[in-house]
């Protein structure tokens, strides 16, 4: 029957064997297995996560039948952690599923070292007090933390890690690394070997645009005192020059050259983002530095020396209209330059490792190669401690959000979600839990929310009355659809963090289930 891997085929096409391997090695701890937690884990179990540990001290109640798919009638009065864990296990028997019947709050208070064993902790439906404690514990042990909350028609997802470095960011649109306006000798030589004025129409319409642009931009530069087209007018003229070289209207290679002509005007050297990374203080390497920063330090040395201001060449080229042999030759020229750059970086890596007293072979060739290929796309994500965000949010941002129509609901929900937690620790229940106390709860919640805003240094009156009463109307309800949405995001972020691919969400995601105008808040 099926090969073991074919059930993961559709996701291997996204994150590859390496990503899958990382997932299969990861161990996840889930706090609270209501619908938000259950749905989060469901998506990870299906994807083949290594192990899950479900922590929940509660028993299954009748109300769970109305929003949690991972329990059924037979589960009533049994341990929720046990029931959810059993149903999750059904989804994928290669996952190791465990449960602990204990309240997450108690575990956080009494046994912080417990969390040390996990790759990632996902805290769902946890109140502020416990989150702040858990966040500090995870920081201390360097464990990744995702906080997920569903509440009525709102909710939030927030990641907390000291630092998350990504090499394989897989950006959607990223300019190819073609070096059209500063070709290295081999590329230049190859371009020179091709006659743009060939009389063979087949060759003429199958000369790759890379060659056309390298040659014509040189022609342009020599006629313009060594400068590349830069003004709008010059760029237009450059396109006209390209057009004049066509011998018939259906030459796709020249059309491609005109479309790509802006690439000859791109500035040389590294992007501002990369500049920031190579100048980060972590580049000052010592024996305890992460491999990532060793590689960045090597990259910096390369840029300052062999690279002549450029990062290592990526080495791949996009498909383009071309004779097969021209295309294959071009591929080889780009690939061998990339290989040479890799060897240079490898030497820097070894040198640095030796300098800090580590084994020079400790970083694998494949790792260095992958780093070189993605050197232009590196990403460093850093997250504040949640407590720091609460105590000193970025005031200018808060004020901007409060007055921006697109953000006012999201920031309102942000404040109200915090207010709900305070209300709950004061009164030991959610605001609006009982129909009879709606009015009172609304004004109590308002007082708390206004207080939070005032503490931030903002005007409390900017909060909409309708949103406050809406929050009370929710009364702590956890709707299945909202939980599935929030759980979907939490699991997606978990996958990105564990595979170290793609770019995780930064800031706090605030779900707006009213009109779906959800927002990211950077506080």
């Amino acid at each position, binding site marked *: 029957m099926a090969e073991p891997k074919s059930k993961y085929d559709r996701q291997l096409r996204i994150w590859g064997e390496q990503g899958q391997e990382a997932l299969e090695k990861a161990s996840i701890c889930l706090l609270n297995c209501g619908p938000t937690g259950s749905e989060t884990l469901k998506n990870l179990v299906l994807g083949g996560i290594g192990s899950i540990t479900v922590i929940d001290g509660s028993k299954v109640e009748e109300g769970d039948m109305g929003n949690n798919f991972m329990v059924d009638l037979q589960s009533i009065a049994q341990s929720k952690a046990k029931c959810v864990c059993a149903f999750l296990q059904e989804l994928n028997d290669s996952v190791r599923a465990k449960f602990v019947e204990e309240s997450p709050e108690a575990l956080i208070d009494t046994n912080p070292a417990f969390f040390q064993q996990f790759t990632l902790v996902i805290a769902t439906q946890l109140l502020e007090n416990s989150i702040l404690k858990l966040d500090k514990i995870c920081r201390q042990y360097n464990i990744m933390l995702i906080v997920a909350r569903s509440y009525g028609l709102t909710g939030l997802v927030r990641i907390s890690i000291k630092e998350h470095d990504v090499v394989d960011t897989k950006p959607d649109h990223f300019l190819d690394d073609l070096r059209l306006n500063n070709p290295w000798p081999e590329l230049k030589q190859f371009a020179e070997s091709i006659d743009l004025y060939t009389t063979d*129409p*087949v060759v003429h*319409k199958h000369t790759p645009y890379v060659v056309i642009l390298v040659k014509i931009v040189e022609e342009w530069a020599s006629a313009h005192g060594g400068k590349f087209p830069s003004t709008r007018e010059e760029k237009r003229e450059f396109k006209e020059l390209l057009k004049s070289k066509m011998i018939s209207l259906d030459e796709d290679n020249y059309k491609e050259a005109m479309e790509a002509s802006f690439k000859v005007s791109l500035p040389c050297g590294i992007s501002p983002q990369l500049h920031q990374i190579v100048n980060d203080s972590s580049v000052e390497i010592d024996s305890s530095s992460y491999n990532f920063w060793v590689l960045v330090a090597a990259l910096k040395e390369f840029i300052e020396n062999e690279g002549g201001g450029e990062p290592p060449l990526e080495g791949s080229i996009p498909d383009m209209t071309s004779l097969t042999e021209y295309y294959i030759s071009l591929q080889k020229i780009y690939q061998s330059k990339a290989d040479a750059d890799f060897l240079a970086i490898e030497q820097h890596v070894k040198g640095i490792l030796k300098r800090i007293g580590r084994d020079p072979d400790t970083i694998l060739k494949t790792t260095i190669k992958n780093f070189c290929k993605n050197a232009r796309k590196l990403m460093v994500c850093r997250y504040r401690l949640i407590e720091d965000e609460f105590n000193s949010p970025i005031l200018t941002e808060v004020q901007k959000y409060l007055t921006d129509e697109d953000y006012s609901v999201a920031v309102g929900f942000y404040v109200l979600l915090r207010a709900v937690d305070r209300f709950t620790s004061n009164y030991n229940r959610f605001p609006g839990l009982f129909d009879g106390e709606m009015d009172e709860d609304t004004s109590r919640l308002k007082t708390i929310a206004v207080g939070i805003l005032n503490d931030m240094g903002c005007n409390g009156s900017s909060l909409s009355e309708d949103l406050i009463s809406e929050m009370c109307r929710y009364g702590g309800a956890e709707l299945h659809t909202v939980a599935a949405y929030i759980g979907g995001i939490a699991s997606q972020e978990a996958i990105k963090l564990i595979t170290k691919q793609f770019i995780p969400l930064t800031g706090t995601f605030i779900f707006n289930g009213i009109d779906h105008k959800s927002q990211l808040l950077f506080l």
Partner: protein
Amino acid sequence: MIRLFKVKEKQREAAENANGRAPVKKQSAGELRLHKDISELNLPKSTTISFPNGKDDLMNFEVSIRPDEGYYLGGTFLFTFQVSPIYPHEAPKVKCKTKVYHPNIDLEGNVCLNILREDWKPVLNINTIIYGLHHLFTQPNHEDPLNHDAAAVLRDNPKMFEVNVRRAMAGGYVGQTYFPRCM
């Protein structure tokens, strides 16, 4: 809308006893657009169109082209068109049913015409395609070959190409390949 749902439920119960409407065929937006294309066809004189499944199936039809000039003068070439329900979002599938010695049509009937694949756009129509096909016979080109041998002969020896085309159309061998008569 729950109130409407309730009303509808009552209507449904009532309707179950009455005569339902006759089952009706749904028409896709693609069929409608094709209907427009077909009703506005303005074909070259040398071209005829036919609908093997009758007047109400426009999605499958045949076009025969009799070039009025060039190498292929006197031949008749039959093409089948298969139009998808999401036309014109997607180009029709066109195949040449007549075996032909042609640089841009292979022996299986695949046609190398840019607007049938990479350059298809929803603003184009059936008329454009038929004119494009017609053009392939008056102006075969050796730069985008699908039949490599025919293209090479056209490029290197147009006289020989002409002889080969005549031989193929009259029914006979060109190299190892037999072509049934199509004149």
